[in-house]
């Protein structure tokens, strides 16, 4: 490993000397109540083998029956990815022996998948990449293996333990065309896909718990050269960061081989995030021969237009449409719109505010959400949907700022307290004596006092140094502990200075 890694340091891969081609295969565990082909509840972290039945244990004589909701979820995903929903789709058996597979075949789809030929547009800041979706198909998940021994690795254990709780969980496999041109694009694709899936409410998309998993195919070739490079398949790219890092490593590795006049081998490699490198899986001599054939235990699924329309109508407004609406309808900048739409809950929050606020305050709402609010949410690592600040509270706070009731500076601390306590801004302001002083007669007295105490600064101002007024404003603010309405202070000061001989 280490020698390979050192090699990479000398590699001459740069963005311009090679072209990278990446295709991704993503598996999504659906958040249905029950498994794909039996009535067992889905569970994460239940006692081993406590969520199993004769069907998902592959006991002799048992038969699969398709979960209707899983099919509906799959159609939703396919529609959201602009796929053609195939009116006829069937299930195949993919045959291979592995102990996490109860039947030693996986029920999956092969040449008649549910959806095909779609795309997902991925925003890369200064350009948008349209990534083709080859297919969206349904299948069942495997069980889990626990390898004995302290390292938890297969190679160092002398036995493994199988837990079939996960076996039979509905899975959707989403395969892209080789349209992805860089590891960064791959990462953004997965971010966009996850956002979409969360909008559709079909999966919890937890990469940590394995409900969203990603494998990649990657090849590189000299820029401008004909044909395709030899591709490797990279497994275990199960976080956004690992996906990008693993692919970057692999780009470098392949380039180093080519530079040294060696050949890239077509192989499956495993990404290890600890060493941040990929390693070839022990290449087994037997090439896989899955012996796909139509599962005789299941009958075809026919999707007619009515069924597709029915499911379509249950799909909420998706991020791309929201971004457009925020821009054209609310007049928000592109960047704000993208940020707000990038998370279903954030968008919902923003839209609740929009319903309560005047349109000319929406930019202000957006600023608060993108700025202070997000910072506090991240610090507390909670979602906006569980925040104590309600949209009405944020709107009231903005009202108070706009009407001059409180200063921006105190608003920030009010906001923080709202975030921590969930109190209404009015309540906080009252209790803390934070209300902005916008009463002219009160301010006049303080201003006169400041003018009297700083004759030299007043002189400077009068002799044409207009900037000197800043110091005087600062003095007024200090005297009011920041509560003075700055605009009003400015106005009165100028008036007073002009009056003063």
């Amino acid at each position, binding site marked *: 490993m280490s020698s390979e890694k050192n090699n990479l340091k000398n590699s001459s891969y740069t963005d311009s000397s090679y072209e990278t081609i990446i295709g991704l295969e993503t598996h999504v565990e659906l958040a*249905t*109540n*029950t498994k794909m082909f*039996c*009535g*067992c*509840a889905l569970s994460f972290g239940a*006692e*081993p*083998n*406590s*969520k*199993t*039945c*004769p069907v998902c*244990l592959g006991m002799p004589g048992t038969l699969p*029956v*398709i*979960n*209707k*909701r*899983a*099919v509906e979820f799959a159609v939703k995903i396919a529609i959201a990815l602009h796929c053609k929903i195939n009116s006829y789709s069937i299930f195949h058996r993919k045959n291979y*022996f592995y*102990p996490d597979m109860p039947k030693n075949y996986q029920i999956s789809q092969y040449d008649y998948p549910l959806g095909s030929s779609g795309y997902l547009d991925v925003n890369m800041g200064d350009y948008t990449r349209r990534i083709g979706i080859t297919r969206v198909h349904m299948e069942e998940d495997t069980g889990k*293996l*626990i*390898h*004995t021994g302290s390292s938890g690795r*297969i190679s160092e*254990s*002398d*036995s*493994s*333990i*199988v*837990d*079939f709780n996960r076996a039979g969980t509905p899975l959707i496999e989403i395969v892209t065309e080789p349209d992805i041109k860089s590891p960064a694009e791959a990462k953004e694709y997965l971010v966009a896909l996850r956002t979409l899936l969360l909008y559709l409410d079909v999966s919890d998309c937890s990469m940590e718990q394995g409900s969203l998993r990603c494998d990649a195919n990657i090849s590189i070739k000299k820029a401008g050269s004909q044909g395709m490079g030899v591709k490797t398949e990279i497994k275990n790219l199960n976080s956004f960061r690992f996906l990008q890092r693993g692919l970057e490593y692999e780009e470098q590795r392949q380039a180093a081989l080519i530079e040294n006049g060696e050949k890239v081998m077509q192989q499956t490699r495993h990404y290890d995030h600890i060493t941040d490198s990929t390693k070839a899986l022990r290449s087994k001599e*037997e090439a896989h*021969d899955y*012996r796909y*054939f*139509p599962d*005789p235990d*299941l*009958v*075809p*699924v*026919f999707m007619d237009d009515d069924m597709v329309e029915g499911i379509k109508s249950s799909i909420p407004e998706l991020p791309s449409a929201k971004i457009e609406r925020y821009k054209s309808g609310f007049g928000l900048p592109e960047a704000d719109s993208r940020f707000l739409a990038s998370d279903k809950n954030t968008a919902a929050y923003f839209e609740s505010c929009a319903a309560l606020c005047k349109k000319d305050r929406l930019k202000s709402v957006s600023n608060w959400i993108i700025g202070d609010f997000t910072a506090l949410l991240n610090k507390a690592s909670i979602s906006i949907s569980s925040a104590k600040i309600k949209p009405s509270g944020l709107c009231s706070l903005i009202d108070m700022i706009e009407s001059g009731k409180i200063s921006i500076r105190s608003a920030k601390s009010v906001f923080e307290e709202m975030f921590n306590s969930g109190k209404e801004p009015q309540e906080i302001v009252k209790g803390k004596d934070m209300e902005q002083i916008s009463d002219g007669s009160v301010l006049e007295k303080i201003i006169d006092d400041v003018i009297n105490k700083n004759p030299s600064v007043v002189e400077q101002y009068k002799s044409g140094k207009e900037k000197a007024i800043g110091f005087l404003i600062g003095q007024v603010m200090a005297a009011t502990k920041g509560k003075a309405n700055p605009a009003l202070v400015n106005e009165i000061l100028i008036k007073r200075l002009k009056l003063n001989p």
Partner: protein
Amino acid sequence: MKIISGQEVRHIAKLAELDFSEEELSKITSQLDDILEHVAIITRADTSGAEPTSHTLKISNVFREDKVRQSLAKEDALKNAPERCGDGFLVPKID
């Protein structure tokens, strides 16, 4: 004429996860060859325009509602396990 070679039979045995002794292997190779030779008559059938039948039934869209059913008691799930470890099925070193 041989339709299937000993080497192919070995490959198939691997896919099917079956061990055969050398003696068994040569016997089954010749039996498979006989059978495959016999079934080869289907190549004579004119199937132009005949779709493959994987189902004699003309039914489709058989679904189950997404309602939870009682799972097995853990002990029943593991009842027939040849070897278990805790609440899991134990398998030897994966190679």
